[in-house]
């Protein structure tokens, strides 16, 4: 008699899913599959660019630096890739962080205001002076970002606010604070060494790429050599069961928001260094939405659980390539948003079980 009420529940679980014969092939195939879809999309975009934009794949070395459309795309995608890395972990816990753009603006503002900078000619040699030591200013900017993340995390894990609402507060407040600090003016940085971060080159490649590679590498190592990835997935799939298994779910959730904010803080440094100023009104505007889009394009479900860090990087590259393509083709930039929205629509639809059901229903 007890079986009776259980049975419908059991029937609802995907017990009938096909089982792969070999363990390794199941995992590698699933991973390959996730990346396959996003990589295929990226390849398709690049193919379009190859056909429509003359010299798209041409790379040349000028002054020891590598130049070309591809380098340009990857370089411009750097802040987005950083934000997407942080967003991936948040989304994997069933959360979302829409304050990323505001944290970018705030971190850029803090760094730029603290550095300020002037150029003076001493003995006929230009010397750059910062108001605050540059490294200290950058640390302060990242510190501000970490506080933002802590705030988000405590609202979500401590007070149990819905992530979108909790981070909405900072989305408004963070940018507001940045505007307040700058009086809504653009703060220009006159300090040459700071420019290196966002526009410098190392070994012929943009330095920003090394920052992204560093963050990606550290994150991947963390996920590989600690149980972080396992715990994040467990919390994302079944938070109640995860807590009962002894995982510190609240601490974990606080961590992912702090991590996402740290990534956003670094993205803010890159952005403000790249444009040699802080623009509280526009820096990182809508970056959170691009980051969410990049994560979904990379095959991570917004429902939480299984995630792919590499997929999010590919997703960010897809978005930047899309933007680049639209600009290069001379299409009015207003169209950009519409095209992106079509992409979002297609991605979301491809993840919808009901849509898949419809599709199968028609096929059957």
């Amino acid at each position, binding site marked *: 008699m007890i079986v*009776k009420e259980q049975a419908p529940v059991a029937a609802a*679980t995907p017990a009938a899913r096909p089982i792969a014969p070999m363990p*390794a092939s199941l995992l590698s195939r699933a991973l390959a599959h996730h990346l396959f879809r996003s990589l295929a999309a990226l390849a398709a975009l690049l193919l379009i660019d190859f056909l429509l934009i003359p010299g798209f794949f041409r790379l040349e070395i000028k002054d020891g630096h590598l130049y070309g459309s591809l380098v340009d795309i990857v370089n411009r995608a750097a802040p987005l890739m950083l934000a997407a890395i942080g967003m991936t972990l948040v989304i994997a816990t069933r959360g979302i962080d829409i304050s990323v753009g505001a944290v970018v603006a705030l971190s850029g503002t803090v760094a730029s205001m603290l550095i300020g900078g002037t150029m003076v000619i001493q003995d006929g040699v230009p010397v750059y002076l910062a108001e605050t030591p540059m490294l200290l200013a950058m640390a302060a900017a990242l510190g501000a970002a970490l506080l933002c993340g802590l705030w988000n995390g405590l609202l979500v894990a401590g007070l149990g606010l819905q992530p979108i609402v909790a981070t909405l507060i900072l989305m408004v407040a963070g940018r507001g604070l940045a505007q307040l600090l700058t009086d809504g003016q653009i703060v220009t940085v006159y300090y040459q060494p700071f420019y290196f971060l966002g526009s410098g080159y190392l070994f012929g490649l943009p330095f920003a790429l090394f920052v992204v590679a560093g963050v990606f590498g550290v994150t991947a190592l963390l996920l590989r050599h600690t*149980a972080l990835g*396992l715990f994040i997935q*467990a919390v994302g799939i079944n938070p109640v*069961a995860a807590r009962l298994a*002894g995982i510190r779910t609240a601490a974990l959730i606080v961590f992912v928001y702090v991590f996402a904010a740290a990534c956003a803080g670094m993205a803010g440094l890159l952005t403000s260094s790249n444009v040699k100023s802080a623009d509280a009104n526009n820096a990182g505007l809508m970056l959170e939405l691009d980051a969410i889009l990049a994560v979904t394009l990379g095959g991570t479900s917004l429902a939480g659980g299984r995630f792919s860090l590499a997929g999010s990087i590919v997703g960010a590259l897809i978005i930047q390539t899309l933007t680049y393509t639209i600009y290069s083709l001379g299409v009015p930039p207003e169209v950009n948003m519409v095209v992106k929205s079509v992409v979002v629509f297609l991605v979301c639809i491809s993840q919808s079980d009901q849509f898949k059901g419809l599709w199968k229903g028609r096929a059957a």
Partner: protein
Amino acid sequence: MLASTTALPVLDVTGIHKQFPGVKALSDAGLRLYPGEVHTLMGQNGAGKSTLIKVLTGVYRPERGSIVLDGQRIEPRSTQHAQELGISTVYQEVNLCPNLSVAENIFIGRYPRRFGMIDWRRMRRDAIELLARLQVNVDVSQPLASYPLAIQQMVAIARALNISAKVLILDEPTSSLDEAEVQLLFSVLRSLREQGMAILFVTHFLEQTYAISDRITVMRNGEREGEYLCSELLRLALVNKMVGVAADTQEQPQACIEEDHQAGATLLKTKQLARRGVLAPLDLTIKQGELLGLAGLLGSGRTEAARLLFGADKADDGAIEIGGRPHTFATPRDAIAQGIGFCSEDRKHEGAILDLSVRENLILALQARQGLLRAIPLRRQQELADYYLKQLGIKTASIEAPLGTLSGGNQQKVLLARWLATEPKLMILDEPTRGIDVRAKQEIMDYVTTLCRKGMAILFISSELPEVLRVSDRIVVMRDRKACGEYRRGELDDSSVLHVIAGEGCQ
């Protein structure tokens, strides 16, 4: 069966059949409800009570059977439709808006209007009047959340009454109320009964059944087992009919797996462990290498006690002593650190992480105890998974298959292995064999008893009394959120345990 009452039943439900994919939930279920009575629907978990209620309220459509309300055959299409017809339901969880006022909650969706605007004055006046009918006197313009749960329940009832209800269904309304609140609810039910309302009351609490009911319908295996006058049905007979074991059979419990073995030193002791409205102060002692059975009906406090012991819920009084030192468990982590493992009765929601692989599910608790930074090497994880796959006979395509691809019994074994991998001193098993096939059930129980013989203490909770009697060294019987008796192996048999559970011959 019942002597016919002079009046005609206001609700006559007969021959209801309801099939779910692969399982028959109701076959020939039914009940009769007369005006001016409180009628209790009883049955064990899975007997089909909630399915029947959902048929009455239009959530499910039955394949066969008839529902006759006031001589009219009806076919409720939705809860709203059922309400319009005159069947109102108050659910276990209060389904109201805590931030709206009491009056708004009562009239939500059907505000009285005047010149196209909401007539607030009339709404407040009507709300006060309705609540007065329930002997509740509160400020109806205050937000609902500012009142205790019992008042909120009254508001839910007032809301149900307002829709010209003929039949009022209360689905486990008392499960989150304390004793005084229950009494308040009952006095309201009594006055409604005097006003001629037909009340269908669903509960697991025997005391409450006898305190309030006129008649009882017992369900078992999706069928109407019978309809009885409350005053004529002994508790023992009631439990009997619910469980389906004849209480007068003197059949000996099946031979014990082994002779009574010597239990070791005291491992854990609870002292007046309690949580308001959930568990009355409980003293429990568990020894090393002992299999302690916790028997009782659903809602008797057995699961609640287990959750407090594991820190899944926080006790608000009393202490847990381990090795003579007092501990308080605020989270499961605290309990795990003391060597306690817990298999929840709700496998799907509180145990299984279906999208993770068998291996990941299996090492999760061990990894959580080791901490985030000390990842268990993959090879060690595979060894552990292979070991428990073999030990428990878990059938899976591979240890990397998602847990969701396994059958219920095999999922349960993986979750058991999750805890065994942490090598707990005390393993709490809450209905470990529910909803799984007979063979897996047997395998799990065999393995558990073996572990127990090797020194692990086990707290075993099950609705299946023969199982509890067969494996337990000692049995604590719980009833109405209290422990009401403690017995050694052999002191209870199938019949006497029913007496104790029913509250007759209680110590």
